[in-house]
């Protein structure tokens, strides 16, 4: 496996800003927290906190996805992927190195989420006994699957397009516009099921939790079907990436 030093550098640059964003995020939430304290909403209470945080932090996926896209596209635009193959790296090894990168980023986001949850929970949750702390921590795992699937999609788009700017635009446009609009029309106009769309399925892993403080009618567990669909898409994206890397000239 070779995660090239360049991307380690870029990674650290981005990683640091990622932490900064989290700091900022914590601050923001600390402010928000006083409001919630007043209204008595237990966002950072253990048990609930995992689903809440896992949902809130979903935005960071985009930063990680950009890291993945930049990492792939730079290999193509600098042609270093070509020289790596000439030097004797196999195409599968190259894919593994990039999958290694997304595994690493996934673990990182899982760890950060856990630490963040523990800190916020310890600070603000009325109950801090161990069983309560670990209840619902499967949302951390679900969040990691979500990130992993999302990054696999980024990997696929970047490998397909090979140009940084265009990949990022297409990726963001698809994830934030094309699919949500398409599924929105299908769901509300024609009442068709949309659970099988990739971005939707990744998003479904951790459902929007906050409504439950109003309606109390939210899926507050990780559903097996969501896990299966998301895993399926992840496998499909990784396999398509494999085919692209395997079959194309570089």
């Amino acid at each position, binding site marked *: 496996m070779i995660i090239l*030093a*360049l991307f380690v550098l870029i990674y650290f640059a981005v990683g640091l800003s990622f932490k900064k964003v989290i700091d900022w995020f914590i601050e923001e939430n600390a402010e928000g927290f006083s409001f919630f304290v007043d209204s008595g909403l237990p966002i950072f209470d253990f048990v609930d906190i995992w689903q809440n945080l896992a949902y809130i932090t979903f935005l960071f996926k985009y930063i990680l996805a950009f890291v993945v896209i930049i990492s792939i596209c730079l290999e193509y635009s600098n042609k270093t992927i070509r020289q*790596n193959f000439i*030097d*004797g790296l196999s195409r599968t090894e190259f894919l593994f190195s990039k999958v290694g990168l997304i595994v690493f980023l996934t673990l990182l986001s899982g760890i950060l989420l856990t630490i963040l949850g523990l800190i916020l929970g310890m600070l603000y949750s009325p109950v801090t006994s161990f069983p309560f702390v670990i209840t619902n921590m499967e949302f951390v795992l679900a969040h990691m699957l979500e990130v992993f699937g999302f990054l696999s999609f980024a990997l696929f788009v970047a490998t397909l397009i090979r140009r940084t700017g265009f990949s990022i635009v297409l990726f963001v446009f698809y994830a934030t516009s094309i699919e949500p609009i398409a599924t929105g029309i299908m769901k509300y106009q024609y009442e068709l099921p949309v659970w099988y769309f990739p971005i939707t399925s990744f998003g479904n892993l951790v459902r929007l939790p906050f409504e439950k403080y109003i309606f109390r009618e939210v899926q507050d567990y990780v559903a097996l079907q969501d896990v299966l669909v998301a895993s399926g898409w992840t496998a499909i994206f990784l396999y398509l990436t494999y085919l692209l890397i395997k079959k194309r000239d570089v």
Partner: protein
Amino acid sequence: MSTVLQTNQLTKHFGRIKAVQELDLQIETGQVFGILGPNGSGKTTTLGMLLGVTKRTSGTFSWFEQGEGHALRKRIGAILEHPIFYPFLNSIENLKIAAHIKDVQNPDFDGLLKTVGLYDRRLDAFKTYSLGMKQRLAIATALVSDPDILIFDEPTNGLDPQGIADIRKMIVDIAEMGKTIILASHLLDEVQKVCSDFMVLKSGVKVFQGKVDDVLNQKQRIEVYADDEEALRTALSEVNQVSSVKFEYGVLVAELNEEYSARDLNTFLYERGIVASHLANVRSSLEEQFLSILDEDD
């Protein structure tokens, strides 16, 4: 001698473009093999297939008589077209990546960089290098695994005369270390100066293969001139060993068969009472051969 590379009907089409067509090739240990051909004749495409970056359309090839597995490329040092490196990393870091891919134990980066004359700039980022420095780093990288075979694709492209001479000297030095070299070039005199064997590609088809020396020595070319040009022409036409006579740049150029020398010709003319005002032995250049090979096939 053992076979380093064997190709069998190797073919690559880019859509309608037939970049390489049914290439059969065999390269033996210790050869310095030139792939000669004009721009777009398929040199880089051929090397790209052999190095696992360009997917072939059909045919097979085999390195070291062991097939085409990626691990075999770890025993090859190769540069295709331009030097390619991570722009923000310096020489040492770039060499480390290549050494890592090639599983090199205890690489001597400093020694390599001294060999190619890049030691002083080793800690500067690759993107700050001049083209000549980039080529030097590329050669250092090709040498990093102490490979048995090196592949250069137009290594002197874009360099100034001094740079060209330096790089060629490096290639000759490497050849003298007993390594097999494959050199693609559209520069004839590069192949002539560096290679032992060569083939000529034209529109993706191999139109010639042979030893550089054989081709050079096949025919001698003599420039000759006398005041009485008519008498000279007549005399030349009577000599069996003269295979052709052409008028070029104010002199007659005669091609002689191997056993007949310029001295014999001079004696003959003298006996016929013709005094040559100009007589010179010009080595038949590969360029003429190259052009005639390309012409022949039209």
